[in-house]
């Protein structure tokens, strides 16, 4: 009941005119970002962070804007998957498998509508899951001392590559880069300076936001320049929507199963939305078996991954808000945003910033409804937007990023840093080194170091404190599993994913 009260208060925050507008704007921008191939949810949120800062928005409005972008990107990813067989973002990869064949059969409008409904169900159920699980976990999180946190951060690093990650070694390199960048600045445990060379601007270390915007947004610009990508994607015309109630009811059980699976994989640190959509799709296929026509345009093959990835996206907010440990790349970006706003995620967030947390959760419900409305009747608009040439889009993105970064600190040095990170991001992407682990390394590295030191200070130097409680041992077991499993089942999963992608003649990068 207490939770319900908080939620109602949250709706009071989210339903103010300003915040409603931010949720709507975020949903629209998010859908667009998700729909454009290349610009994933993490990039989208990274690009819009500076916007929130330059508008001088209060914390809850900033967060409502960005979570709506996040939710919107999860919806948007499916549009280009279905119409063009190009996933708008990684989690939407599985949606290509049945979505594109449906479009080829002249059922593109139906595929978009069904996937929008499945996304809605996934998002809705996962938000309900968040409402139930998060406050409970927040209370439970008080039992997390420094030793447990250390184990948890190790877990986050261990599962970083994800089960579907391609090259574990490159992930490790990226994470190490992040850790190295994070050591710059004053070490709070001793007050000593590390790698600051008496440059005052470096005392507080390298700002995550600058690194994120540089790595994601600026490198994106460089890629566009390189590809001379002047033209938009080919124009697609939609057929008239013919969807009966029976069609919707037909995909309901699939959507429900997908939602539950997606939510669970979202809550696990490191796994994220791609795993959510993959598991939902494969299990659904196995469950339905020969009765279905998976891979040839089965509506259930569209509903399962979409319910899965949207549910996983919201599920990933659970560990981010309650423990301060992000479950995916995008939540890592959101976490950096919170820290920049002087809000410390963790168990106390739910009591100390109740307005903010519940406002954001309420905004997720509202945003989801807005997204459903946007994505069924107005899907044609987004389809048209897909053909905007990037030559108009990218300068806007760069302008927003630069103005925003400058607005945060009024420092030209930060702009140079942003450009430097942009170049670094470009080089790393050329080398196929993933960028998300860098951000996670920067965010989690100092926390992990601090937890280890605190644990050892508490135990007077006795290392056994690290596995001194049942909880810590449990986390260690999961961490080891997360580290070892990719080597055992990773290749099998990847082979299957590749095989399925092959079958549908996908042009996945």
């Amino acid at each position, binding site marked *: 009941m207490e939770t319900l009260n908080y939620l109602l208060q949250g709706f009071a925050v989210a339903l103010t005119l300003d915040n409603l507008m931010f949720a709507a704007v975020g949903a629209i921008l998010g859908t667009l970002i998700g729909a454009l191939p290349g610009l994933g949810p993490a990039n989208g949120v990274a690009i819009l962070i500076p916007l929130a800062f330059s508008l001088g928005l209060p914390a809850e409005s900033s967060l409502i804007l960005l979570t709506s972008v996040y939710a919107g990107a999860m919806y948007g990813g499916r549009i280009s998957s279905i119409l063009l067989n190009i996933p708008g973002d990684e989690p939407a990869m599985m949606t290509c498998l049945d979505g594109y064949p449906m479009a080829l059969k002249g059922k593109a409008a139906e595929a978009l509508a069904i996937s929008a409904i499945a996304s809605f169900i996934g998002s809705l159920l996962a938000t309900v899951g968040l409402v139930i699980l998060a406050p409970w976990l927040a209370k439970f999180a008080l039992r997390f001392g*420094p030793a447990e946190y250390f184990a948890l951060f190790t877990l986050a690093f261990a599962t970083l590559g994800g089960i579907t990650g391609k090259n574990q070694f490159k992930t490790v390199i990226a994470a190490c880069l992040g850790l190295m960048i994070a050591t710059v600045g004053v070490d709070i445990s001793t*007050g000593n300076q590390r790698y600051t060379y008496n440059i005052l601007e470096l005392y507080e270390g390298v700002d995550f936001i600058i690194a994120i915007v540089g790595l994601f947004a600026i490198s994106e610009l460089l890629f566009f320049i390189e590809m001379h990508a002047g033209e938009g994607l080919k124009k697609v015309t939609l057929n008239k929507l013919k969807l009966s109630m029976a069609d919707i009811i037909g995909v309901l059980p699939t959507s429900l199963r997908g939602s539950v699976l997606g939510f669970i994989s979202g809550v696990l640190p490191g796994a994220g939305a791609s795993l959510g959509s993959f598991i939902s799709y494969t299990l659904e296929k196995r469950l339905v078996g020969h009765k279905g026509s998976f891979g040839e345009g089965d509506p259930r093959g569209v509903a399962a991954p979409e319910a899965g990835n949207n549910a996983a996206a919201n599920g990933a907010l659970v560990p981010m808000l309650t423990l301060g440990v992000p479950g995916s790349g995008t939540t890592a970006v959101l976490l950096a945003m919170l820290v920049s706003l*002087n809000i410390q995620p963790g168990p*106390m967030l739910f009591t100390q910033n109740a307005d903010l947390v519940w406002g954001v959760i309420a905004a997720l419900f509202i945003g989801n409804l807005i997204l459903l409305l946007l994505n069924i009747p107005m899907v044609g608009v987004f389809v048209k937007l897909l053909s905007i040439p990037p030559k108009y889009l990218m300068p806007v993105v760069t302008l927003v990023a630069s103005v925003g970064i400058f607005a945060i*600190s009024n420092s030209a040095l930060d702009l140079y840093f942003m450009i430097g990170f942009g170049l670094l991001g470009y080089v790393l992407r050329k080398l196929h080194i993933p960028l998300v682990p860098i951000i996670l390394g920067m965010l989690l590295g100092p926390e992990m170091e601090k937890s280890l030191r605190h644990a050892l200070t508490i135990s007077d130097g006795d290392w056994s404190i690290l596995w001194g409680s049942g909880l810590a041992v449990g986390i260690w077991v999961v961490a080891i599993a997360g580290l070892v499993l990719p080597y055992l089942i990773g290749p099998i999963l990847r082979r299957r994913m590749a095989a399925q992608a092959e079958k549908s003649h996908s042009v996945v990068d």
Partner: protein
Amino acid sequence: MKSSSIKTLIASATLALAASQAGAFEQSRTAECIAPANPGGGWDFTCRSVGKVLTDIGLIEGNVQTVNMPGAGGGVAFAHTVSKRGDDSALIVAASTATTTRLAQGQFAGMDQEMVRWVGALGADYGVIAVSKDSPYQTLSDLMSALKEDPNSAKFGGGSAAGGWDHLKVLIAGSAAGIEKSSLPKIKYLAFNGGAEAITQVVGGHIEAFTGDISEAQGFMESGDLRVLAVLSEERLPAPLDGIPTAREQDIDAVAPNWRGFYVPKDVSDDAYQWWVDTMDKVYGSQEWQDVMTKNGLMPFHKSGADFHDFVQQQVKSIKDISTEIGLIK
């Protein structure tokens, strides 16, 4: 140095008598307030709320623009003021005890408190020492006697870096309680990213005591999770916090205000400096500011002009002494 402080003393005396004299200096239409941190923190709040009151009660014609300049715990803004804005009379910079702590410990490389002029403080957040509701310690004296026997008997957590203001509060209290100087460095302090994170660990039973500001502890005190053993103020705080005993009542003479105030560049004219001092006095005296203080949990604390200058010198000196004693600075 001495002559300038005498000059300000004389100036403040004459100006206090004849307020119309202040008209000798014309403040430009818009002023700038540098908050040496990201939006959302204490310095940002100081700038924005004082700026708003200045405009609302018509002390400044135009508006006060807040500029965030994070970096080095205020060092970037300090360096900027010293080197680039030396005589800008329309500029104020937000400061607090965190600023004096870093100055005292030489953390703003090559700079000290003499390089700017200290205008005034408009309120303070007082230090507290608190334990979890299940803790065996009922009073600050209990806790301090335990530490006297064994400096490792209680571990403290706070929101500032090691050697920062929250850490120093423990040492100030410990030293006032008669803990031997050689034992002070043995008291363990765990640095967290903020007061709330440290409190979480205290409430969760992972560490024994919290050191921080009353504003950080208030919410947890009201919810019953935290027992505040003492507030490090001269007198008891106004209601509803008047139930918390001061350290002084427990025969531990430790006072630790985290004041919120401003400095201006060194080379502004005496008239301009005096204009800011008078203006801050007027702000502090206004009902609008008193409302801001009540709403945001700021406690009464006001010093300005020469008085504040001396206070800053004093605070820097005592922080320097205690930091040297425990070996934080050599």
